[in-house]
């Protein structure tokens, strides 16, 4: 009534309806879980003319296996991500990141699609999903496409696109998520998040992916690290090697000394964890 200024509310019950509305309304705002949208709305200088809720669209719901991939509907809530065996058991780092996201009511309301679409530099899920090889399904009136998540986030965001789902390759991977906050409070915006995954076989590590968030406006893939954490070589890696490897990406990651120290620490710990698996 008086807290928010007026706008027109729509709750389409199909994806095509939602895309039509996105296209023809003047200043649309997509509403997923509401934890970001309805919060930032009040402070925004660009007030929406129309708010389009995605809650009733069946094409965005569910978690299902599609061939060799797991499909997670973009309107899947964080608590569902935690509770589902399909996500939680196969992708421990995803479950870990979801468990650390916000507080209980936020986890009940927020969605995976909303988290990614927010493009806040500190969101946890984007980094983790990239490290797991995620691809994002994005739909607009013109096309439906599937693109690697890191590429999608590096692109300029479009107001006329709806993320419909996330695709994760179903592989046996070791996956970890390290998250640092300024205080012991998990609700604090993280100072650093490191998402890591790899395949561990008899010959050691392969297909290593390390992604870091909070340093730039989108998650950054660490390339230097990949070169030293491979095969069985990872077992002999020293702290100085780690530091050197990270600094190779220093330009692109813009890590400061404090975060660098945390990252080195995390990678040291990671190597211990990998040795123990």
């Amino acid at each position: 009534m008086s807290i928010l200024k007026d706008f027109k509310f729509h709750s389409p019950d199909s994806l095509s309806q939602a895309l039509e509305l996105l296209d023809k309304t003047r200043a649309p705002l997509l509403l997923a879980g509401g934890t970001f949208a309805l919060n930032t709305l009040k402070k925004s200088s660009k007030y929406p003319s129309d708010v389009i809720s995605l809650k009733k669209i069946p094409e965005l719901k569910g978690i299902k296996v599609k061939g060799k991939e797991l499909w997670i509907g973009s309107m899947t809530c964080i608590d569902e991500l935690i509770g589902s065996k399909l996500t939680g058991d196969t992708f421990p780092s995803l479950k870990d990141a979801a468990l650390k996201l916000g507080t209980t009511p936020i986890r009940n309301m927020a969605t995976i699609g909303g988290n990614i679409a927010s493009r806040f530099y500190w969101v946890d899920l984007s980094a983790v999903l990239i490290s797991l090889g995620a691809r994002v399904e994005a739909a607009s009136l013109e096309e439906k496409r599937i693109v690697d998540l890191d590429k999608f986030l590096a692109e300029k965001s479009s107001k006329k696109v709806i993320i419909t789902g996330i695709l994760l390759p179903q592989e046996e991977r070791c996956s970890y998520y390290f998250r640092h906050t300024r205080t012991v409070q998990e609700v604090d915006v993280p100072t650093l998040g490191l998402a890591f995954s790899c395949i561990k076989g008899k010959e050691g590590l392969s297909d290593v992916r390390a992604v870091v968030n909070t340093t730039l406006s989108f998650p950054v893939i660490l390339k230097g690290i990949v070169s030293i954490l491979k095969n069985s070589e990872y077992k002999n890696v020293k702290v100085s090697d780690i530091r050197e490897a990270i600094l190779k990406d220093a330009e692109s990651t813009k890590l400061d000394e404090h975060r660098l120290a945390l990252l080195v620490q995390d990678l040291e710990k990671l190597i211990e964890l990998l040795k123990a698996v």
Partner: protein
Amino acid sequence: MEINHQINMIKNKTVSPVGKSVPRIDAKAKVTGEAVYAFDLKLPGMLVGKMLRSPHAHAKILKIDTSRAEKLPGVRAIVTAEDAPKIKFGSNEYFFPYTVDQYPLEFEKVRYIGDEIAAVAAVDEETAQKALALIDVEYEILPAVFEATQAMRPKASQIHTAMNNIGVMMPFNFGDCDKALAESDYVREDIFTLPSAAHAALEPHVSVGRYEVSTQRITLWTSTQAPFKVREAMAKTLKMEAADIRVIKLNVGGGFGGKLEMFPMDFAACLLSKKSGGVPVKICCTREEEFSFTRRKHPMIYKLKSGVKKDGTLTAITGEVIADGGAYCSYGPTVVAAAIMRISMVYKITNIRLMGFRIYTNNPISGAIRGFGGVQSGFAVESHMDMLARGINMDPAEFRLKNATDPNMTTINKLILSSNGLKDCIKKAVEASQWKQRYGKKKDKSDDIAVGIGMGVAADVMGSKMYKAHESAGTIIKVEEDGSIYLFTGAADTGQGSDTAMAQIAAQELGVAYERIRVKAADTEITPFDTGSFASRVTFISGNATKNAAFDAKGQILDIIAKEMKLDKNDLDIRDEQVVKKANSSFVMTFDQAIALCYSFNYGHLLIGRGNYNPKTTPVDFRTGEGNVSGSYGFEAQVAEVEVNRKTGQVKVVKMIDVHDIGYPINPSSVHGQIEGSIVMGIGYTLYEDLKFKEGRVVNPSFSKYHLPRSTNIPKIESIFIETHDPQGPFGAKGMGEASLLPTAAAIANAIHDAVGVQIKDLPITPEKILKALKEKKAD
């Protein structure tokens, strides 16, 4: 004796309720959502009010033009200083008249970002907001100063008329400190810095004002801890009589010292109602306004230089405190006094010289916040004490025990400590924490995680007089014909449980079941005077008034029974719902029968008990610091157990042991609740909270950036009572409100030192500070 009178049957009779954890009298309404707060109040025709606040930290007001705003449809009234007599008010007026420095609505000068200039009442929020933007104010910007030490410099911008912006200068000087320091075996100097903090009560400040045109009387509903204080300030600034201003406290969603005085929005809500012809006006703060424009904790720089002898005797404590008071005085003097005058309650010291300065700056107003200046002092002094003990290789617990004050002693500044369980608190804390086996010994949890324990002790005033000539509280008890009882108290329950405690005390003294008592509190038109809920005074002062009122009522009842039964009144008592003979507890009649007798044809005596209590203190001379400021003092010892991650610098408080001399607990559950709440608030101040400012503006005015402790951050808390049965306290009780907040920061800092060998002297203790200190230590 004929009893034709309906006898009241009470279910769940809790007799002799004092000392029992009876359910809170207001809990049922709160768990069902039925309890009404000023936040919920809706009156017919009610308008939305909003304050116009200065966007500048320091400026002269050249012109205020409300004409454009007045033309906006939906605006019903606009007020400025022109609409009332221009009279200043202050919150510490009685002892410090020079601190009366604030107009409710400014018209000459603004001194902080948020300083109130005008107010608007409109039909809805949006219109009120638009109207504010249409009020034209012409400013001449003045240089602003945001840092206390800068503000003290000779050429600094003058904020009020106080020279060098020194709002309050308070000395505390006894003995010969220089001689004592020279004779010490070990002397050390430390500087501690304390940040600001927010009260963060969940209910924001809310004022609902209604002016009755025909009688020219005001009713103000406000979220407050001190309705009588608000009335006093309203009467002064509006030039009205007290009896024409009714201030009503409903349920209050927390105060913690932030709601202890009249706010411009209280004043404005009533003035707007008057100007709109008697329509009620509600002004409510948003969370951002709460953080930015209400009150904050005094940031302080606390310097200490003290000496000890080899055997552990404290020889002298000297120091200086510089407090950043912000733009106006509020409770500044009390805060400074609490910051420098508590040390002699805790330690036997004859040479002590402290100077407290409260400096005006163009920051938001620093005021009272739980513990007054005792929290800042607690951190500085208790950290310093640990470092002194370490300097002579003495166990910090032993050191404190050696220097602790005793019962029945008078301190150097003439405080009369009667009941004093401090030494017992320390001994018990040592025992409960296995101090002797664990302190100073390596007890790492893992390679990365070190464990440490640390101690802090404190004392608190329980019935202090610092605000008015008298500090009396009053209670009235009305026993109705059917035996149900009303208790009228001025004490303001803001969640700490004073309503319940008053009911328990009354029931105990009167000899009846707790369930008979209904409490009506904190309504200036109906209840007797009470200064308010602060300085942990309510159980002791208001509790004694209540006990006296119950005693009076009981006396009236026994008078009549004695007359009727031809007995000696002095042989009778009322216990556990029965009138009995004191000597052998033999039954005389039931309480209900006694009431029926009082109201019978022959007697027709309306039972109205009156009680008054003014604590026995001596006036404090604030030029020296001498005087027994309180009727009672509480004491405690805390031991914190922490885990410190050497790699990340993160600190987790795993356990807090609090041993407290509370005299006697009126309601043990309530006392534990206050202790637990205070400890968690203390942990917040030490580790998570940090109200940050930039150029006079709060930088983090939201819960997402100002972190309160959450349920996932709490340690295991062991709360232990030491019962010393205060001779003055009602049933031996002293009280509990703030004390458990005082030593917490130091206990944690000292525990961190025990864990990893670094002493952080600057709050909040962040991982960065610990890592930096560890790095520096390694380099040494």
